[in-house]
């Protein structure tokens, strides 16, 4: 079997990662330096080096575990892993891809609910105004996350320090922003 | 076309393909007897003009073969040959000369079986293509032209 034939038969997650973000999981030799430097590794169900290893197996069961993991949502994109990786593997880009894939396949880990709720609220906020409306964001997030009591004491303090607008900033190009959102929705 | 026996000439390097063909012999692997081998020290030595001369002298097919990249006895002769064949092939294609009649291959001293395979596939292909009539006609016509000019 030639290499090219082999490639066309692959439909693993690792292959998708290669195709979409040019990150080659096979480059990883499991030194663990990414996990060692990752600020949230101890919160993760699968530290970054484990995600790499599971991708390498190209087994459907492992691909599934990755897409359903909490880890991919806990990655804060601090880029420490990439900056120290001896093989220069772009784990942050890979994580972005895995998150998007996890969502598109509806495999999001339930524990990541709040994180995604926040991201969605954030994008909702700018979708209609063009800029972030922080108060709106907080209220929308509370609605989405059903986390009504959190930060209840923060908002008044922010307002008293002039750090929270009561009304949103709406840009002139908001229609264009809406179109951008529409065209890029996947 | 059943009695057509193609003439195939093989230009090979001494260290890999010639030795590989020796191994085909010591392994008693049988292959088509249409091939005639010409030995060179290295593929780097093979002048592209010789390939044209082979066709001009009636060859229906040609094999050019040497050491695999990185295995050249002289370190880099085959790399230079490779570039030469790339250019040659493109030029031949552009002039409409049938490159299906030339097989380029890497056959190492350990690849006795591959040598037999290279010869057999080439001979089979040339058998299908038939004699290189257009080239032979060109040569014959040219002889006539010369006679006319004189």
């Amino acid at each position: 079997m030639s290499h090219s034939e082999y490639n066309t038969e692959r439909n693993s997650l690792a292959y998708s990662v290669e195709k979409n973000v040019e990150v080659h999981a096979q480059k990883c030799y499991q030194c663990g330096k990414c996990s060692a430097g990752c600020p949230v590794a101890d919160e993760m169900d699968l530290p970054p080096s484990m995600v790499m290893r599971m991708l390498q197996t190209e087994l459907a069961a492992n691909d599934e575990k990755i897409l359903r993991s909490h880890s991919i949502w806990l990655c804060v994109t601090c880029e420490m892993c990439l900056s120290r990786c001896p093989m220069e593997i772009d784990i942050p880009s890979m994580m972005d891809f895995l998150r998007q894939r996890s969502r598109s396949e509806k495999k999001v880990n339930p524990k990541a609910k709040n994180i995604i709720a926040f991201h969605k609220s954030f994008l909702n906020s700018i979708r209609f105004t063009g800029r972030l409306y922080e108060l709106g964001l907080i209220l929308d997030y509370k609605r989405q996350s059903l986390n009504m009591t959190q930060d209840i004491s923060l908002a008044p303090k922010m307002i008293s320090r002039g750090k929270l607008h009561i009304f949103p900033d709406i840009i002139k190009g908001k229609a264009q922003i809406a179109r951008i959102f529409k065209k890029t929705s996947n | 076309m059943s009695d057509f026996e193609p003439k195939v000439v093989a230009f090979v390097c001494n260290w890999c393909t010639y030795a590989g063909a020796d191994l085909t012999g010591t392994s008693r692997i049988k292959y088509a007897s249409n091939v005639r081998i010409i030995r060179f020290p290295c593929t780097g030595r093979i002048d592209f003009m010789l390939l044209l001369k082979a066709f001009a002298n009636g060859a229906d097919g040609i094999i050019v073969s040497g050491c695999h990249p990185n295995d050249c006895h002289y370190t880099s002769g085959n790399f230079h040959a490779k570039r030469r064949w790339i250019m040659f092939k493109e030029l031949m294609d552009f002039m409409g000369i049938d490159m299906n009649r030339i097989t380029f291959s890497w056959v190492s001293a350990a690849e006795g079986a591959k040598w037999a395979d290279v010869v057999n596939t080439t001979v089979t292909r040339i058998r299908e293509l038939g004699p290189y009539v257009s080239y032979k006609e060109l040569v014959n016509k040219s002889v006539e032209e010369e006679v006319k000019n004189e």
Partner: protein
Amino acid sequence: MARIGVFICHCGENISATVDCGKVAETIGKLKHVAYSTEYKYMCSDPGQTLIKEAIKEHKLTGVVVAACSPRMHEPTFRKACAEGGLNPFLCEMANLREHCSWVHEKNDLTTEKAIDIVRIQVEKVKLNSALQPIRVPVTKTAMVIGGGIAGIQSALDIANTGHKVIMIERSPSIGGHMSQLSETFPTLDCSQCILTPRMVEVAQHPNITLYTYAEVESVEGFIGNFKVKIRKKAKSLDEKTCTGCGLCTTKCPQKKIPNEFEQGMGMRPAIYIPFPQAVPNRPVIDREHCTYYIKGKCKICEIVCPTKAIRFDQPDEILELEIGAIVVATGFDIKHADFFPEYGYGKYKDIIDGLQFERLASASGPTTGAILRPSDGQVPKNIVFIACAGSRDPAKGIAYCSKICCMYTAKHAMLYKHKVHEGKAYVFYMDIRSGGKNYDEFVRRAIEEDHVNYIRGRVSTVFERDGKLIVKGVDTLLGAQPVEIVADMVVLATAGVANSGAEDLAQKLHVSYDAHKFFAEAHPKLKPIETNTAGIFLAGACQNPKDIPDSVSQASGAAVKVAGLFSQNELTREPLVAVVNRTAPPMYSTCVGCFMCQSVCPYQAIEREDFKNREGKIVKTVAKINEGLCQGCGTCVALCRSKSIDLYGYSNNQVYAEVVALLNEY
């Protein structure tokens, strides 16, 4: 008029079972210029060879074709027979009827036809063969060994013991190399100095070895057997013959704060110094860069105290010109230092040291007389972390290869530490343990099982300092990348082995290839690991890639055998199958037009420039010239030359052209 003799061999029945040898002999016999054609059962047998010898005389043959087995088998046999029969051996060719015909085809007319063609090709070729004489090159039986580490020492002694002269040059003031810096050696833990020092002394005392320390190669010209080498003997600023090596000057020198190279910067030395107590030669040199006299123009205390008046401040560098027959390159390696590692603090933490520094700490003759102490405060480290693969296998840092020796010396370091600090804890962060070698893996197991060194599989992300301790952050990848944080007193980096400084420069002077990492390149990775692509120059030790002592020593002895083999002859004879650039009468001199594209295809740097001058001495033409000492006869230049000014003996344009024509024309 050519008179060719053709001898068809039956090879028992190997050929005659499928090829009609009689018909071949008969058909060939009718060809133009074939004076004699015959067949015989075994051409390679004595009677067969006699047949050839007699026919040469009887039929006044000008060329011989033996149609038998592969020339790769018996060409030397038949060429020798021809020579004995009075014919130049290069007027003999073989037609391969066995491997290329009888063994690979069925018995039929086509096979016999092919056999006839095969013989015909060689007949046409041999008509155009020329009588060639083997190339003879005289051999200067003096070897030069560059580098005085263990590889150079071994090679020099082995060559010297075969009775040949050796010039050893070493750029530092003493021979000994990295091995002299080591404490104990794996896997036996015997003391490095104890096994090395006697060999160093032997070099100094050997009647066949001339040692030049503080010397470097300036230039190399010529070719195998005939190199002309210039070396620069840097001024030591003293008369070595007068100096007794008493060392008084070194104790009185007021400049004492120069980082000691031998101690890897962990100790200080004066400006006039002997690198280490066992140095060979045991004579000081003045480091002019740091000497007060050379900087400020006054001091001269060494001169005042010297009991034998040996100091020579105005001594110049000396250039020596040497005739050398073979060269062994044994320039060794270097390691990356802690400042190479941003994530481990760019070298700013005193207690993060490299492997060679640890060797000095562990050495009984080192700055701490063998006690493992923190460089920062002289305390005994209670927790020590060894980080393997520091820089090696790290493409991001430009070093993709494995440095090979680190796994073993890290195990040794951890062991030595545990032997000296019994209550201490030693951790090794590793990725893989590469301990192939005799008794090597057993050694690593001992470190783990008997000395309780804690091996953790994972790479350290960062090390930083807090409250005088080093915080080492890693993971245990065998526990699902569980975080590991060790509060260490000292960290030892098993840093990558890299090419020695100046390796590239030297390789260029020697015209020897080197790889992307500036390590010297061998001629063939498997079958010519000691040779370089320049004939007569050999490699020994870690200048080729990081190597441990046994490997370096083995290769050094191998290189010595190569040299001794070369020196076993007074002249080198080579097959004259080399390329030649034609020469014509002035004013043309050659049809070569001097584009020198051949120079860039030649793998052997065999193509030189030849200037032709007119009567006024002005250069009127520059053309290519093949150095037949270097040419290996690949012929790539021949096929490239547009004006057909280069040809190759044995495979000339005329010959190969005739073969093509012969092959296909009707007969």
